[in-house]
């Protein structure tokens, strides 16, 4: 017999008069039990979904894979023109193009995580209703394909970065860059947390999906994407700091652009909020996973 993915999903072996059981299906399963082991067992499926996301999204398109970089570039250009030319928003002495891009790239990664995860149940109702695999495979694949896209965009960012610092812009890449992976993980956790919360709710209230894409747009304005937090009055700063994306983007800038970072307490608050949202999302996803086929 083959040794493959499914054999390792076997949660427990029960001995009963010489009879072994490799799998038990029962109505009771803790909401707080997250089955990481079976997600790992299905890692090949995760890989396939990631591949599908990439391959399928640029088949029959003009620009193909270039779409992954066109979007942040265009947004950055628009911001540079609109905010750089028509307003007097400060960019903390950083070249405006780089400053805006350093907001747009992490933001679009985060927004993508939220929006794609939030559609997990509704977009895959067909598959979920016919085949069992750990449902967490889907958000996991989403994060991974988003990290890959993010990587591409980050590469692009550093191309401009190198170009501009050769041209003499005051940029210094320090050791702080090493915290980038942590930031990526935090953004993913936050995005997936919110996405999962919403996806669990969208199985019952479809309009939340519509509200979400609108909400994410509004959220961007409160996330220091095109202005530095140093521009804010202390009152505003104390309110906006409750937005967990603010410390992430600010820390990202501090790491790559060398602008002054946030106070450790502010960063800690962001991490704390992220963890709360992440686990709340995960548990509600877990709870939904059991019953959603009967609800959709």
């Amino acid at each position, binding site marked *: *017999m*083959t040794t*493959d*993915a*499914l*054999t390792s999903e076997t949660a427990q072996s*029960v001995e009963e008069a*010489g*009879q*072994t*059981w*490799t*799998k*038990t*299906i*029962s*109505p009771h*399963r803790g909401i707080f039990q997250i089955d990481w082991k079976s997600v790992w067992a*299905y890692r*090949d*499926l995760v*890989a*396939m*979904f990631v*591949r*599908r996301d990439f*391959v*399928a999204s640029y*088949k*029959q398109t003009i620009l193909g894979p270039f779409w992954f970089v066109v979007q942040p570039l265009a947004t950055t250009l628009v911001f540079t023109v609109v905010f750089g030319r028509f307003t007097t928003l400060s960019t903390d002495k950083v070249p405006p193009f780089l400053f805006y891009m350093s907001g747009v790239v992490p933001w679009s990664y985060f927004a993508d995580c939220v929006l794609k995860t939030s559609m997990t149940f509704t977009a895959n109702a*067909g*598959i*979920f*209703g*016919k*085949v*069992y*695999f750990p449902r967490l495979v889907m958000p996991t694949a989403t994060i991974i394909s988003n990290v890959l896209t993010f990587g591409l965009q980050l590469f692009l960012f550093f191309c401009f970065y190198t170009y501009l610092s050769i041209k003499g812009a005051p940029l210094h890449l320090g050791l702080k860059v090493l915290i980038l992976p942590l930031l990526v993980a935090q953004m993913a956790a936050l995005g997936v947390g919110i996405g999962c919360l919403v996806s669990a709710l969208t199985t*019952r*209230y479809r309009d939340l999906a519509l509200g979400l894409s609108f909400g994410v747009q509004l959220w961007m304005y409160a996330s220091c994407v095109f202005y530095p937090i140093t521009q804010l009055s202390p009152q505003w700063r104390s309110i906006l700091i409750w937005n967990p994306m603010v410390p992430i983007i600010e820390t990202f800038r501090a790491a790559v652009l060398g602008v002054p970072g946030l106070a450790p307490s502010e960063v800690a608050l962001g991490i704390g909020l992220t963890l709360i949202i992440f686990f709340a999302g995960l548990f509600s996803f877990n709870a939904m996973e*059991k*019953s959603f*086929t*009967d*609800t959709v």
Partner: protein
Amino acid sequence: MSLAVKAENISKHYRLGVMDRRMLFEEVQSKIARLLGRPDPNAAIGDKRSGGTGEHRSFWALRDVNFSIKTGDSVGVLGRNGAGKSTLLKILSQVTTPTGGLVRMNGRAASLLEVGTGFHNELTGRENVYLNGAILGMSRNDIRARFDAIVDFSGIGEFIDTPVKRYSSGMRVRLAFSVAAHLDPEILIVDEVLAVGDAAFQRKCLGSLNQASRDGRTVIFVSHNMVAIENLCRRGILLEDGKVVFDGSQKEAVDRYLEQASGRAGDLAHRTDRRGSGAVKIVGIDFRNACGETLSTVSSGDDMDVVLHYTKTTPEPFPNLSVFIAVKNHFEIGVFHQNNQFQGTSFGTLPESGSFVCRLRDLPLPAGRYRLNVGVKSQSRGGDLLDQLDDAIEFSVAGGDFFGSGFELPPQAGTCLVRGDWRLEK
């Protein structure tokens, strides 16, 4: 011998409507009202349960289902639509969780509730084989090892690197089933997925399921196709209204199922949807074989008697009666009509009760479900309708050896069976 599957008291409860129609706003409104001890503003009018916590309209799709399946056994699950077959399969495949009870399995299980789940149109056949295989639980190495066999089995050939959206629907299904056929699980759970593809491919599918069962795998199979069940399964579990009503040999389960399906014959006398004067009434219908034994199963190609029991409520002799039977298939298409006058038979003076018997030779019906209309007319009085019952009885025909060659008409290949003598002319 060890067990592969053991189900203990599994139940599945569904709530209908109510919950899902509501908006978040209303739900919050109801919750607050309940907290404040006020009547629920969203309760249905006339709804006494102001708290809204009372029972919703609900039903049990499965109720306390118990069975165990030995390793290597092949079991057919039978039952009418709505009997709970699909729910049972969904629970076994973990697509939905039971409301109560426990299922334990020993061995790697794979379920096929549908072929081609997750196929992506933009991807090529090759990419879809990997994707679909992974969805069904195969690792990449497994798929790689079986890739050639999968493509071979599907007969897709050089189109394997073409996007699936360019495939015909038949090609899609063939490729999808081929992936599934190479799953090699220890326990295989199959829903009615075989009703796809052309006849030759269906035979191939059945063959591969058969092979799986011969290889010692445990097969759980749901189908309406009695021929497939009889060929494939050793054991049958019959469900009715979410309960197991029979668990035993395949033959007996099929018989019981067919009996259940034609179970309405008993109360024919009390049917009120009949037309005609009622002077002569059909009160019961039986099928009998040539030896006069009552049949519970009818097979293609059999000689059989359709027996219409009647009672007469007037003293009139009715010497010139016309009695007909008409068979419709499940698409509501009339397959044939038979009338004693077609054959030049007359019954003479009619006794007070008795039976009209019509011998059908070499029953020309392919396997499937049918319904029978019956009627009696008096020809002597200008064609008075005495009795007519539409859908008097529903019956199933099992596949049989109509052609005498062992071949069976593939499903959906025709609505009736006709013999032909072939020769070559030069």
